[in-house]
Structures are given as structure tokens and as C-alpha cells.
């Protein structure tokens, strides 16, 4: 059979209702038309530079390196972007594209709220209407981000169905898109969903790995030995990996949220505990029961609390090009506190999963080896939740 569009090995595809098919076809056509258009590229470049603050720094974590007594550790500082995470890279690209397509309204799903905040920001900037779907449980976990989105002029709709988390927010955003297609672009936040989203989001996030490569060559004169990023749907990881896929000496490591451990049910580690399935527009790995019912996953991190993974990650796993490791809540919380104390950088609890894995492997590596950790976002939003995790009664209200 001929290779189908939007496939990564066996993964990917377009498993969506017929009502949405022309919308994704039009999106793909528009993207192919604009992606190499000099005017579009220039506009996006200026936005990323002047508005989002790119390039983001590649910071040598000297104290962490000395403390772990192993590999040299660099942090890719996506937390320093405008809106506080890597999500803005993709959102500015998609919002600009949507505007070119004549759309006047953006809808989005959000877990931790970072993608919702980024989308609300781009909508405010470009004068577009914005509606963000967020699991009701996440609106509780991430109250500050709910307020930020509203402040930016977006409507936040708490999703009460299912587990009231990220997967339900995605389902509801897809439902809303089938209701209103003409003026609405679904600004999907990760390298997931139906083709062309995994490709578009990857391309807009690939700026992370291009910058890492350029900067590490300047600073060290060679490529890193490992690039580590956290993975929910997988957008910051795909962005961090993409330019290194052809460089076989660079180990690519995605850190999945293991929640309370991959032996039990309270986990969101898709590659480690899931199997092949079809959901949310794509064929990939999913946490599910024996009859294909999607599992109610769990992680302390709202942004990684998702039962699937982007199709290109599933493919990188299949061919052995990337490795996906589980990191528990406890390990992530320890890393959250460790990076705060050691480097004065409070990472997002999502990113702390990547920091935690680096803390495990760095001491085993030679002193002249190099690890790059992508700090995908900043952790201000998580402070209250982590305090509660540690038994402190810190309330935002």
C-alpha cells in the first residue's frame, strides 16, 4: 500500500468526523502555501524575536553540573519566552496562519493552561476571538492560568465530561470545531491530533532544536550527547529533538509522567504502559483497557496528564531513535525543588520531569559529555500545587 499522508510509520493519519475533513485539508493547503512564503516567514520571525523574545537562552547550569559530578548540563530556557513556555512558538505560527486563512476566532484545549494562555495572548495581539477548553479539574489545579486567560480576553470553558482533564478538553475543542468551522481555527497545542497538526506543530517548535544546535556548536564546538525533554502530547520534546534526529550520536530522551508509578493505574506514561490505538484523530500509543476504552490517566502535572502521545514520537520509539522513560510525581517534585535551589530557576512541573531524569543519568556520564535539558516552561503556576503536595496549606484565593 502506498504511504499515506501524515503517516509516521504506522502512526498518524486523519481519524476525524467527515464534517472536519475539508477543514483539515484546507489547513494543510494553506500551510503548504505559506510555510515557505518569504512574507509569512518574515512576519513570524519578527513576532518570535520582538514579541516572544527569541532566541531563548542556552544556559550552562554550572552549579547543577558541579553538584551532580558528571556530564555538563545546559538548560534550554523556553521558560523565558513571553507567556512563560514553549507554547508561544507554535501559537504565533498557527494564529498567523489562521489570520491568513481569513479566520477570526481561535479555539484551543489546554491542560496546565500554558497553551491556553499562549493562544489567548496571540488572539489578543491579532484581534481575534478566543475560546479555551480546560478540564474542570485543571481549572482548579491551575487557577492562576485561568485568570490569565480571562485577563487576556479569552473565554475559558471548564469541561466537566470524562475525567475533567486534558483529554476531555481536546474532545470538547474538537466538538466545538465541528459546530463552527467557517470562522474558527482549532489551534491545537501539541504534536498530536489529525494530520496536518503533528507536522505543523513540530515545524513551529523545531526552532528549539535549531537554536540548541547553533548555540551548543558556538559554546562547545560539538553536539550534545543527550537532549532531554518532558513528553505529554510531545510538542516541546519534538521541537527539541527534531533537528538532531539525523545526528545519531545525540541521544534523544523523552520523559513521560509516571504519576504514582508505572506499575499501577495512576500513571500517564503512554509509551511505557500503553498500546497501539486510534483516538483524537491519530493512530499512536494510548493508555487503554482491553476493549479499547481510553484509560483515566493521572499525573501531578496537568500538562502531561494525557493518555496518548504524538504519532511521530510513537514512530521514533518504534525505530529506536528516541527513548521514553517514566518519571514519577515524587521525582518531578524533587527536581522542581532542586532546580529552584541549585540554579535559582523554578521550572514548570512538566519540565521538572526532564530535570529529574537528567539528575539520574548525569552522574553516570563522563565530565566531558554534554546534556541539554529543555526547560519548557516556568513554574510560577505550580507553586501553590507543589506547596500543597508538600503539606503546606498555600491557597491562591
Amino acid at each position, binding site marked *: *500500500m502506498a504511504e*499515506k*499522508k501524515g503517516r509516521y510509520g504506522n502512526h498518524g*493519519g*486523519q*481519524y*476525524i*468526523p*467527515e*464534517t*472536519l*475533513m*475539508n*477543514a483539515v485539508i484546507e489547513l494543510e493547503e494553506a500551510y503548504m502555501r505559506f510555510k515557505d512564503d518569504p512574507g509569512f516567514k518574515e512576519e513570524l520571525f519578527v513576532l518570535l524575536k520582538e514579541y516572544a523574545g527569541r532566541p531563548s537562552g542556552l544556559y550552562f547550569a554550572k552549579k547543577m553540573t558541579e553538584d551532580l559530578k558528571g556530564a555538563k548540563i545546559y538548560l534550554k530556557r523556553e521558560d523565558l519566552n513571553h507567556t512563560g513556555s514553549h507554547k508561544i512558538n507554535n501559537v504565533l505560527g498557527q494564529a498567523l496562519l489562521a489570520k491568513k486563512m481569513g479566520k477570526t476566532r481561535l479555539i484551543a484545549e489546554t491542560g496546565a493552561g500554558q497553551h491556553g494562555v499562549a493562544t489567548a495572548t496571540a488572539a489578543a495581539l491579532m484581534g481575534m476571538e478566543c475560546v479555551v477548553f480546560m478540564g474542570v479539574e485543571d481549572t482548579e489545579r491551575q487557577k492562576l492560568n485561568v485568570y490569565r486567560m480571562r485577563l487576556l480576553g479569552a473565554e475559558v470553558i471548564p469541561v466537566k*465530561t*470524562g475525567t475533567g482533564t486534558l*483529554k*476531555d478538553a481536546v*474532545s470538547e475543542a*474538537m*466538538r466545538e470545531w*465541528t*459546530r*463552527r*468551522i467557517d470562522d474558527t481555527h482549532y489551534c491545537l497545542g501539541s504534536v498530536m491530533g489529525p494530520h496536518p497538526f503533528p507536522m505543523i506543530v513540530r515545524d513551529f517548535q523545531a526552532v528549539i532544536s535549531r537554536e540548541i544546535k547553533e548555540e551548543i556548536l558556538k559554546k562547545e564546538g560539538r553536539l550534545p550527547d543527550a537532549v532531554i525533554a518532558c513528553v505529554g502530547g510531545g510538542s516541546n520534546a519534538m521541537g527539541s529533538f527534531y533537528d538532531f534526529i539525523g545526528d545519531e550520536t545525540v541521544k534523544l530522551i523523552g520523559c513521560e509522567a509516571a504519576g504514582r508509578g508505572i506499575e499501577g493505574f495512576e500513571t500517564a506514561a503512554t509509551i511505557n504502559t500503553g*498500546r*497501539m*490505538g*486510534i*483516538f*483524537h*484523530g491519530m*493512530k499512536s500509543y*494510548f493508555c*487503554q483497557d*482491553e*476493549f*479499547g*476504552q*481510553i484509560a483515566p490517566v493521572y499525573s501531578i502535572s496537568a500538562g502531561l496528564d494525557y493518555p496518548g502521545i504524538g504519532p511521530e514520537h510513537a514512530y521514533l520509539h518504534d525505530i529506536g531513535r528516541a527513548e521514553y522513560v517514566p518519571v514519577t510525581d515524587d521525582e518531578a517534585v524533587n527536581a522542581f525543588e532542586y532546580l529552584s535551589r541549585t540554579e535559582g530557576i523554578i521550572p514548570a512541573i512538566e519540565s521538572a520531569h526532564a530535570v529529574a531524569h537528567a539528575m539520574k543519568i548525569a552522574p553516570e556520564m563522563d565530565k566531558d559529555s554534554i546534556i541539554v535539558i529543555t526547560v519548557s516552561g516556568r513554574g510560577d503556576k505550580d507553586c501553590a500545587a507543589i506547596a500543597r503536595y508538600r503539606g503546606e496549606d498555600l491557597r491562591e484565593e
Partner: protein
Amino acid sequence: MIKSAFEKGKAFIPFITCGDPDTETTEKILKEAYLNGADLIELGIPFSDPTAEGPVIQSANTRALKNGVTTDGIFAMVERIRGDIKIPLVFMTYANVVYSYGADRFTRRYAETGIEGIILPDVPFEEKGEFSSVCEKNGVDLISLIAPTSKKRISMIAGEAKGFIYVVSSLGVTGERKSIDTDLKPIIDTIRENTDVPCAVGFGISNPEQAAGMAAISDGAIVGSAIIKIIEKYGKDSPAHVGEFVKKMADAVHGTKDPAA
């Protein structure tokens, strides 16, 4: 044969979520629906995250799964009642339910129970190959959907359609609508230029007038959420109420004639 549902005139097609509130009640509901004039029944196999459904059918899926219904349990139920229900039956579920069971194994199993086709709302034309091939092999039909947004895709989809075509009445997910404003006539005309396979309209139909109206321009009307609401309200006592509603709707649809050309 699915075709037989459309041979006596316009078809009324109710949708029932299996296992809501439990499989025993579903069995009774199916019999009531058959005895009160249904021409074909769509049996929903619940899915945890039904992205094409509105709140009413979503809740039915949740209730059924909470009560422990499984794909195997539904196959067993169909085997028990198939002999009593002398009209075509089709399944409606989501791709992952079929895929995770093994598309071939799933299809073989349901073909054996006497189900004649399947509707998978998250499998569009481009992705249908791995499902339609096993349907063909097992002598059942993969039902295609056509939406108001399908436009140039209509002829392509209709050209390969099997069983019947499910015409989605309007944008959005399943659930009642006050009125259906889409101009479906040109869509159905295009379908008919491309195939002899019958087409029935669904999504948002909740009363006899709407059902008759949709049947008048097509070959039948499909009703889901309005029935599920009755089941939600009456639970184990719902079969007689569903029967009454099906009779009203089926009578309206059966009394429908094609508008004079």
C-alpha cells in the same frame, strides 16, 4: 441485507446505546423498537470518549461503561436477541473499539452474530481501507457518512458507499436541534447521481415533523438523542416508553412520500 430496510418505503432508524442502563433493558428496548415499526436499528457500542456525540449520548456511553458493559457482553446480547428481531441491525462505535479488538476479529465476530454493518464516525474516506477490507471479507458493510461540509468529497464517498449513506444533517455533534437549516437537497441530489445506495438523514432529529421532513428528501430518518433521553429518564422502565416514541416517529416517516417532482 441492509437494503431490505429501505424496500418498503421510507425507513425509520432508531439509535440505542447498548448497556444503558444495562443489557437486559437494551434487549427489551430493541424488541419494542422492532415491534413498533423500526426498519433498521443502530446499536451503539459505548466508547469512553465519543468525540462526535453531544452531551445526551455522551452520558449514555458513560452510564453503560460504568455499569460494566463490554464489547464481548454486547456480542453475547446480540446473539440472544437476533432471532427475534427481523430487521437489519448495524453497530455504531468508534475506531478504537474495533481496532483494539483487532479489526478482522471484531468484524468476523459481529458478522457471525447477524449484525449487517458498522458506522465509525471517526473513520473518514481516507482512512477506511483497513476497516472496509475486513468488512468486505466478512460480508458486512462499512457505512459512509456525508456532511454538509463534504462538498467536492460527496461523489467520491458516495461512489464507494455500501449499505446505506448516513447524511449528517448539520454542523456539530449529535443532539437535538430546534430546526435543521442545512439545504440538504443538493447534497442528496449529488449522492443520487453517484450511487443507488439509499441515504438516511441523522443528527438533531427529535420529533415526528422533523423526521417526516428529513425522510421526505431522503430515504429515511435516524434518531438517537431523543430516544436516549427517554432511556435516561425512565431507566429500566423505559422499553414501553421507547416503543411508544418509536411508533410515533415510524408512523410519521412511513406516511412520508417523496415530494412531487
